[in-house]
């Protein structure tokens, strides 16, 4: 409904300034944007790595959450960060991005910051339980998955 207008304004702001460690990559239209994030402290899990995020917006954004995933790339090199809430196919389990946890006052920048701090705070060098199985069978998009948010410590 007002997705285009709102995204247009977010884009203007994003192109002017962004917090450290968050970079704008591309926004060819108001359906799909890409952003890069880096962890700023010396967390050895993510040292010197940059990760690519893909945002997909429905026409009901920001009433509906965007779909946000990490995507792998070879040029420039982008991998999927290791994290107990990030599957190796890039799908993220974060309540903020789910129907329950999303709020329309969130935006692209605040989502990037949340993901950045989710990585910063992590010490576990592991994937979510059942990752292999999930990735092998899962051809769904994040919005079709019902996550259970049981762990609020990470």
């Amino acid at each position, binding site marked *: 409904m007002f997705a285009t207008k709102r995204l247009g304004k977010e884009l203007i702001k994003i192109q002017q300034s962004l917090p450290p460690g968050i970079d704008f990559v591309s926004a060819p239209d108001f359906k799909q944007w890409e952003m890069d994030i880096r962890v700023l402290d010396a967390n050895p899990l993510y040292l010197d790595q940059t990760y690519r995020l893909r945002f997909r917006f429905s026409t009901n954004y920001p009433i509906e959450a965007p779909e946000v995933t990490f995507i792998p790339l070879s040029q420039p090199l982008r991998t999927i960060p290791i994290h107990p809430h990030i599957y190796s196919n890039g799908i993220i389990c974060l309540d903020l991005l789910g129907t329950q946890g999303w*709020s329309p006052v969130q935006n692209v920048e605040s989502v990037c910051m949340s993901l950045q701090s989710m990585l910063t705070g992590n010490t576990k060098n592991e994937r979510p339980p059942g990752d292999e199985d999930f990735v092998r069978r899962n051809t769904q998009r994040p919005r079709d998955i019902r996550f259970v948010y049981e762990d609020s410590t990470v």
Partner: protein
Amino acid sequence: MAHRAVALKEEGNKYFQNGEYTEAEGLYSQAIQKDPSNPKLFTNRAMTRIKLQQFENCMDDCLKSIELDRVNMKGYYLLAQTQLALNHPNEALTSAITAYEKCLETNDKSTSAVSGLVLQAKKQKWEAKERERIRNRSSMLRELEDMLMKNKREELRQLRLKMLDFNEEAEEKSDIELECRKKVEELRTIFAIADPKNLQRREVPDYLIDSISFAVMHDPVTTKTGNSYDRVTLMEHFKRSHTDPLTREPLRADDIRPNLALKQACEEFLENNGWAVDY
């Protein structure tokens, strides 16, 4: 007779949906002949007349439907659209606000479209004011320019009276012309610089902006946290989740309160900055 009118209306609706407005208008007119007391027939015909850009006739239909049914949101909504198309922003604003109030009473699904129309009317009102302002300003500029020209003509007349030889006269004449052109340029520059509207940066203060739609608010309401949102976008959010957007605590539609002071601030801002509607 009335049921015959309804049948004609149904048929008209089919044509309308297919974009065949002339046919639809004809059918609605027939329906109105059968039953001139049904306000819906008039609003339907008004809708097709908007599509056909027959705004004068459309206005009659809107007024007639309102006369038949005073609590008829659609009548006011279409009337506002028509008045906007006919460039009557003040009247359009009044009609749009009436339509908006009726929407809130009945929780109508067009509330957001009507709210947008209110803002469009405010914008058109500002545009009219802006045109007037520029006209007034340039009339003063024109007057000053005329005075410079008059001076130039006077100097040229004086020059002729001096009875100089041909070359000297031509030289002095071109000096006078040049001098005058420079003065006019300077005058125009000064006017451009002196116009505060040209210097002002087009920015909307954050507190007038709805943090969900990022647009200027028209009907701000406050939640328990003290934050304000536009009623329309908050309602849109409630359709999905009855929570406070900031805290995610439960929030019901009757927990919210109008923020009248902020509403006035938004209105005042738009009166002088109508561009902000599309910003």
